[in-house]
């Protein structure tokens, strides 16, 4: 079933294994940290350029933009299948962009730099792999591959109780994904039993005929892994701890990308494989999302650590995304995917800013900060811009996604849409509290008071430009999303 676009040069594999090459180089040359720094930056930049090239070349394309398929493990029928459509293209672009920001923000990493850059690059392979793979076991392999580097990033380069946060992060995600493994194997056996050919290909497994009972159990098995990763309401407590303890690059990856893999997993695997069970579970998902939006927004209001506020704000924003998915119409889905990408950029920017503020003021505690505007006007301006985008000011990134989600959700069920809109007020409450205690008021004693360095400008200007551009003119992104989303909604994914 390889569609027409048989790419001569395996671009997807290049995209996938380039970061791993960078990792090996970093590990080999680990004694000269400067060299490693440049290698990792070069790798992430090349990945970004390749991704941009692929995006430009596939404007207006339809079906699988890029597709690769090769045998991997015959005895079990596992194949090395990679496929990229509109959604995964955008998410890969987001990954590439945020990885460059992550490397740049940890440019002056003094504690074991080579190992740090190597782990960040392995993370990139894992994330891109999740967004591209179409074979369930390959997907699962990359799903878990993301776990180890993040565990070490938090555990080794974290702050005070980093070990607790790292173990908690590892356990929450692993618990979910082990049930995913069982569900995958059981589905594979059912499919094999019915059709005789044992394979893990996504479109093959979509043909299995399941009794409602089996379908619901398998659906729960799949969703458990994704709900923990998204973090939906009851399973979100790992995120704030992981964020507070993670180093800047780790936080950017965690907030910007890892949360998206959960949502991507839902729309690519869980919903298409078990459409009936998905329909039955939508109200439940919507309720959890709504509770998540309010619950996280309320907690964010009383947090003292800046990173925890942003972490809880991510839980609230992802609540919006899930609400959009639960509304199950084209408008809401395009809105939630757009919001997912915009949230990645905004929150990535926010965490980069927090890292810069921490470098300069030595603390993330809201109580000890203040009056940054007088000392760093440029830095504070950017921080204000990202905060405004995060609280959903129209004309900036998050609003575009949020309004589409709200419109779609309101069309699906006025009660949901109406209540979700209230979430916007609470998000303003906690974001403005952060801005208030950080930027305004009298400025306190500061470690450094030089405003933005050139490197920092390099990170912030593209992100800020994107935040404004995606808010004012999101049409190109929506264009990429249109066809895959409509396919996912009706037939449950590509042929």
């Amino acid at each position, binding site marked *: 079933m390889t569609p027409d676009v048989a790419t001569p040069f395996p671009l997807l594999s290049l995209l996938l294994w380039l970061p791993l090459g960078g990792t090996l180089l970093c590990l080999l040359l680990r004694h000269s940290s400067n060299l490693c720094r440049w290698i990792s930056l070069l790798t992430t930049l090349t990945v970004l350029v390749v991704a941009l090239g692929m995006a430009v070349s596939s404007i207006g394309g339809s079906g699988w933009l890029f597709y690769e398929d090769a045998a991997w493990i015959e005895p079990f029928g596992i194949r090395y299948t990679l496929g990229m459509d509109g959604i995964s293209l955008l998410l890969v672009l987001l990954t590439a962009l945020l990885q460059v920001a992550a490397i740049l923000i940890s440019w002056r990493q003094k504690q074991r730099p080579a190992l740090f850059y190597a782990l960040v690059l392995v993370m990139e392979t894992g994330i891109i792999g999740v967004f591209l793979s179409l074979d369930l076991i390959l997907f699962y392999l990359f799903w878990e591959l993301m776990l180890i580097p993040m565990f070490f990033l938090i555990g080794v380069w974290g702050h005070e109780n980093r070990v607790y946060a790292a173990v908690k992060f590892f356990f929450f995600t692993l618990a979910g994904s082990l049930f995913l493994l069982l569900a995958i194997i059981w589905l594979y056996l059912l499919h094999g039993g019915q059709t005789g050919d044992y394979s893990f290909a996504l479109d093959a497994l979509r043909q299995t005929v399941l009794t409602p009972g089996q379908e619901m159990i398998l659906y729960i098995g799949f969703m458990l892994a994704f709900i923990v990763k998204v973090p939906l309401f009851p399973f979100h*407590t790992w995120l704030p701890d992981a964020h507070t303890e993670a180093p800047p690059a780790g936080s950017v990856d965690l907030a910007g990308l890892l949360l998206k893999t959960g949502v991507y997993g839902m729309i690519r695997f869980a919903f298409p494989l078990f459409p009936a069970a998905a329909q039955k579970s939508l109200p439940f998902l919507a309720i959890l999302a709504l509770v998540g939006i309010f619950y996280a927004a309320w907690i964010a209001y009383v947090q003292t650590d800046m990173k925890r506020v942003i972490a809880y704000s991510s839980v609230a924003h992802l609540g919006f995304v899930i609400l959009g998915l639960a509304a199950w119409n084209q408008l809401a889905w395009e809105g939630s995917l757009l919001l997912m990408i915009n949230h990645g950029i905004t929150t990535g920017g926010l965490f980069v800013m927090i890292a810069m503020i921490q470098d300069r003021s030595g603390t993330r505690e809201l109580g000890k900060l203040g009056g940054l505007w007088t000392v760093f006007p440029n830095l504070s301006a950017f921080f204000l811009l990202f905060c405004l985008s995060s609280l959903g000011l129209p004309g900036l990134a998050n609003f575009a996604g949020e309004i589409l989600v709200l419109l779609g959700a309101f069309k699906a069920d006025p009660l949901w849409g109406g209540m979700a809109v209230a979430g916007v007020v609470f998000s303003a409450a906690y974001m403005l509290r952060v801005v208030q205690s950080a930027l305004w008021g*009298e400025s306190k004693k500061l470690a450094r008071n030089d405003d933005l360095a050139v490197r920092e400008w390099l990170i912030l200007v593209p992100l800020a430009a994107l935040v404004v551009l995606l808010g004012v003119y999101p049409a190109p992104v929506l264009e990429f999303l249109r066809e895959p989303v409509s396919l996912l909604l009706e037939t449950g994914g590509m042929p």
Partner: protein
Amino acid sequence: MNPLLLFLIPILPLFGGVINVCFGSRLPHRLVSGLSVAAVSGSFLLATLLWPLGSGEGTRVVLFSWLKSAGFQADVGILFDPLAAVMTLMVTGVATLIHLYAAGYMAEDESPARFFALLNLFVFAMLCIVLADNLLFLFLGWEGVGFCSYGLIGFWYRNSKNASAGRKAFIVTRIGDLFFAIALLWLFSAFGTVMIEQINARVAELDPLLLTGLTLLLLGGACGKSAQLPLMSWLPDAMAGPTPVSALIHAATMVTAGVYLLCRMFPLVSLSPTGMAAIALVGALTALYAASCALAQREIKRVLAYSTMSQIGYMFLAVGVGTVSGAMFHLLTHAFFKALLFMGAGCVIHLAGGENDIYRMGGLKEKSPQVFWLFLVGILCLAGTPLTGGFFSKDAILLTAFAAGDGFYATLWGIGVLTAGLTSFYSFRLLYLVFFGTARQAGQGHAPSPLMLWTLPPLALLGLCTGLLNLPHLFGGHEWLTLWLGQPMAEMLPVGTEIGLLFLMLIFFVGGWVIAHVRYRTFPGDEQAGWRSFLLSGWQADRVYELILLRPYRAICRFCWQGGDKALIDGVMEGLARLCLHWGDYVRRLSNGQVAFYLQGFAWGLLLIVGWFLLASVK
């Protein structure tokens, strides 16, 4: 003229703002203020030039499609119809004068770039509200205005009280925006479009209950932005911002956005009687509430702030009784004389050496007769002295309210007349305390810069003469504004009742003046009576909100965090882990090093297996 030029009106201030944001701090002070004034005056000129485009049905032009996805279409488009033309002209006109005034007022401020950038962005956002052809673009302007007011109110952010005043304004208006957003969503799900024209055209299809709901939501949105009951507590605190900001935001533009929204969606609003009654009620009550608070205010700008709130109440009352032209007429006159008063207040503060409290001012008449005469004109219009703009517009509203007739509207008319009396009382109280009596201010003030002074006369002239714009028939006028807006002519009351009403208004005006004259002509000394402090704090509104809203909110948040996250979810997880460890310890102690015990393990194993087989085979 090419309709695309219309887009230049909002784009010029945007362009000015963006340049100031990016390069402002590097440019000299003169260039920064000059650029921003040029931008706004440019769009004012364009508004006057393109005036004919707005006549009749108006012109609709689209720049590009902002959000297009599966049936939802919201694009950056302009609807330049009579209503929008009037508002654009007023906004850009007043804004130009205020920018000039600000150039003088903020001469010695240390970060002019940020101020003028925000001012320009504010005008851009206001123009988006006025010119938007669909509700989502209007919503963009709506929240943009909210943010710019947040930035401007909290401009002197070093004193964190100003910053929190800005935050309070942003959040309270955001609550209003919430209702407006829900109305927007509802309209989209009902009509499948957010274009204002299409909605107004097909508004008859909706059932009455939905109509009332939508009207109430729009009223909620308007209350937030125009500081009406119950979302009014942010306006007095917003005086923390510099005076040009108060003049621009709290006189001419932002607070009128709510009224403009109701006028824009009037076809929808007018179809639900309960909605109209609610709007009228909110307007009247706020008018009364604000007027009563203004009586006891000590700071000059807070008096003007409450007076703005009360006058906006009149405009809501006008919309509530069904006359859009009446509301717009009062909106225009109010914009002119209130901007004049605020700017005059700025000069007064300069004269009094930065003193805000009117009880510690006085005798400024001799100090600067010019400021006195201009301030007097503003006070006369505000108090509604006959033949001034304020008199005609307020009187038109009260006439229509009286004409509405039945018991409910009659009471609202009564409240309106009573508030008119109170208005004249507090206006003259302000005048006497500031300009007459002995000079009580401590510091040595300095004369306001010429730039500030020369922007006042035009506003004074406009305040007096706008009455001609919509003269009622009694005075031989032929209501140009109503004609221009295409609204139905106000039906004729018998001449006798009209004259009677005018006479009644006159009595209340003179009464207010006389009482103020008696009370405040000679300085009565610091009054600190009990009921005054109640009024001073706006009927304790802030304490009430703190008690019933903010304190429970913080309690819930803390409970969610400690109770929900920490105790419940983490507690369960860590409990499980500890349980496993406990059992693990128990099993670990099984291998206690004694070989004999290990052999007993064997025996138990044997028993288990043989026993199981016996059980299996017996079954």
